[in-house]
């Protein structure tokens, strides 16, 4: 879509002067003002913009927090408490940053689920999707290292457990772990390098976000019908239409964010992280942050050996595999139809997948014993089964509902029926 010619016309002398030398205003105008977006986008499509704002928010609060933080095992815990008690509005900065991480993940999971629901990963948007998965991986690394910085009990033991995963790999495992730790156990070198990387990775995320947005602007956005834009009547200009809609979505998201920051700032955290790290005292249950819990549950679900692969390596491979499988989703889905709106069976299994992910999250917070393990195993099987079995299979056997001919037709048909979902083209999901 952006293959079209630019519609930017510099009016004043200074605009013409700049445009002839560095057409940055033209780029911004074409990307965020004149850029055509499908007219039927719903609020699920606001999360891309929300995520961009959250990244900026995390970087801004993080830069100021770093001015007061000391990356030293003897000082880190108390320096964070100094921020909470003595730095002007330090409590606000720190709660914004800590809860911001949770909100960031909440938004990214909605964003990913939206992509899975509307088939946003399908050709020609495979690279767009893959760049997104890379961002997710970078976010996970950043969040994990950030959680280590306050140097509480969960910081320390979380770092110990997660870096310990790498020892499961034969031969290369131990050297990798020692490289990550900067020694043989989690200690000052670990904290120092985690701080360094925690400061670096967000800027790498920002770089990949630029590629992600670039790829988006080449292929254009998907929409709830999954039908490509065919004519000018299918789209509206990004500004003011998408801008104001995204702004409203962002306002609602900020209300949720502020609710947690001001009224439940420690809801997402673990009480043990208010205890200074102690290498001699292991907490009763070591649990990661909530946004890692589904993956943690899958890690612990592998309690058995598979041939030469012992249960530890099996668990680690399962956990890494749960992200790795996302990379090949565009080629696992064999369906000709993009959107779940027209795929009754896929829709059902998609919502089961969502329920399963939530269940795995809860199981990740439970001790690995008894029925929890069996549920985790079932959940893990469904997680992978959804991608590896259901996605290829459904595309071959499912009979999709009839698609409207265009976005415009879908929108007009819906509105003619008074907003009531009647008939095939009146997909209620197109309701903004």
């Amino acid at each position, binding site marked *: 879509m952006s293959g079209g010619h630019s519609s930017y016309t510099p009016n004043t002398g200074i605009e013409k002067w700049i445009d002839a030398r560095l057409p940055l205003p033209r780029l911004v105008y074409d990307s965020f003002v004149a850029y055509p977006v499908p007219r039927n986008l719903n609020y699920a499509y606001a999360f891309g913009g929300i995520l961009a704002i959250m990244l900026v928010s995390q970087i801004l609060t993080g830069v100021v927090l770093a001015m007061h933080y000391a990356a030293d095992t003897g000082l880190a815990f108390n320096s964070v408490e100094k921020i909470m008690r003595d730095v002007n509005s330090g409590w606000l900065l720190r709660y914004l940053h800590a809860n911001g991480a949770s909100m960031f993940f909440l938004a990214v999971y909605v964003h990913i689920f939206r992509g899975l629901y509307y088939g946003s990963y399908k050709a020609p948007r495979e690279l767009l999707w893959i760049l997104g998965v890379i961002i997710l991986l970078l976010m996970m690394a950043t969040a994990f290292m950030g959680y280590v910085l306050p140097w509480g009990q969960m910081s320390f033991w979380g770092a110990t457990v997660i870096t310990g995963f790498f020892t499961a790999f034969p031969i290369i495992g131990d050297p990798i772990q020692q490289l990550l730790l900067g020694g043989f156990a989690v200690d000052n070198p670990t904290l120092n390098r985690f701080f360094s990387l925690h400061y670096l990775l967000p800027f790498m995320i920002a770089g990949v976000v630029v590629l992600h947005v670039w790829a988006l602007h080449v292929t254009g956005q998907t929409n709830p019908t999954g039908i490509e834009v065919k004519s000018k009547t299918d789209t509206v200009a990004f500004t003011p239409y998408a801008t104001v809609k995204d702004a409203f979505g962002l306002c609602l998201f900020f209300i949720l964010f*502020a609710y947690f920051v*001001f009224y439940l700032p*420690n809801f997402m955290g673990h*009480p043990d992280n208010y205890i200074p790290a102690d290498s001699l005292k292991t907490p009763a249950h070591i649990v990661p942050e909530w946004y890692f819990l589904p993956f943690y549950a899958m890690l612990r679900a592998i309690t058995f050996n598979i041939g030469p692969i012992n249960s530890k390596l099996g668990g680690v491979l399962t956990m890494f595999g749960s992200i790795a499988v996302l990379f090949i989703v565009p080629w696992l889905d064999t369906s000709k139809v993009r959107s779940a709106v027209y795929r009754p069976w896929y829709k059902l299994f998609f*919502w089961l997948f969502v329920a399963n992910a939530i269940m795995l999250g809860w199981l990740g917070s439970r001790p690995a014993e008894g029925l929890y393990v069996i*549920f985790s195993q079932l959940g893990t099987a469904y997680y992978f089964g959804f991608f590896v079995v259901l996605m290829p299979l459904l595309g071959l056997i499912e009979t999709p509902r009839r698609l409207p001919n265009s976005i415009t037709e879908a929108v007009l048909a819906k509105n003619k029926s008074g907003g009531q979902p009647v008939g095939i083209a009146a997909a209620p999901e197109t309701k*903004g």
Partner: protein
Amino acid sequence: MKKILLGLAAAGLGTLLAFGGAYAAEEEGHNAAEPTHFPIKKPAELDWTFAGPFGHYDKQQLQRGLKIYKEVCSACHSMNLVAFRSLEELGYTEAQVKAFAAEYEVPDAPNADGEIVNRKAIPADHFPSPYANAQAAAAANGGAVPPDFSLIAKARAVERGFPLFLADIFTQYQEGGPDYIHALLTGFGETPPEGMQIPEGTHYNPYFIAAKSLAMAQPLQDGQVTYDDGSPQTLDQYSKDISAFLMWAAEPHLEDRKKTGFRVMVFLVLFAGLVYVAKRRIWSDVEH
């Protein structure tokens, strides 16, 4: 939209059923004499002045809590992140804080001869530790180091479990720490269930978060601390007051946070309303 909601409902229901099954599985197989999950009893939820969106500290109560800390707890428990100067937030004047700090001694910087002598504490100092180091603290307490009290009200909370933790989002329940401290302090003196072995030198308390018994004996009794504001001198009242005080010590900016939060919420809701109206007008000429 309706279908999305229906889908969500179905997803929620499925998850709920799975949760229920797993939860029931956890609950069965409990042995009263040899429990494996702690605490044995969940703490009661009390009414705290600092709970909820308009929560605030009761300064009288904090002052009583400080008295208990000073006269009882501080014999073993340090509170090394709290500075004397912050006691002004409890309603004391600068002079009172100065006098209070002067009752404590802290090690001074090395003098001209290189010796370290103690001096009277000033408001900028933090509460000194009752022990020289962790080893001394452990040696004096049968091997268990009494935890520092600066953050104890945020560092202890009994897990709420499903579905209570979801309800907590709407009730804004953040008082697990004070509830736990109160339950622990009032939970001594119960008779352990038949057949339960209590290790020597420890004290049974079904509310203790980590085991069936702990090294600390019951620290507070009825009438132990004299109140000068006429509040009841009971164990229950003492426990509430010290819990509130420790919440303040752990989260001194709680009132500020909630007040700021109210202004932020009002602004965001009004602003969201305006943006929504703008959105309606802009989209009014486009069917979507």
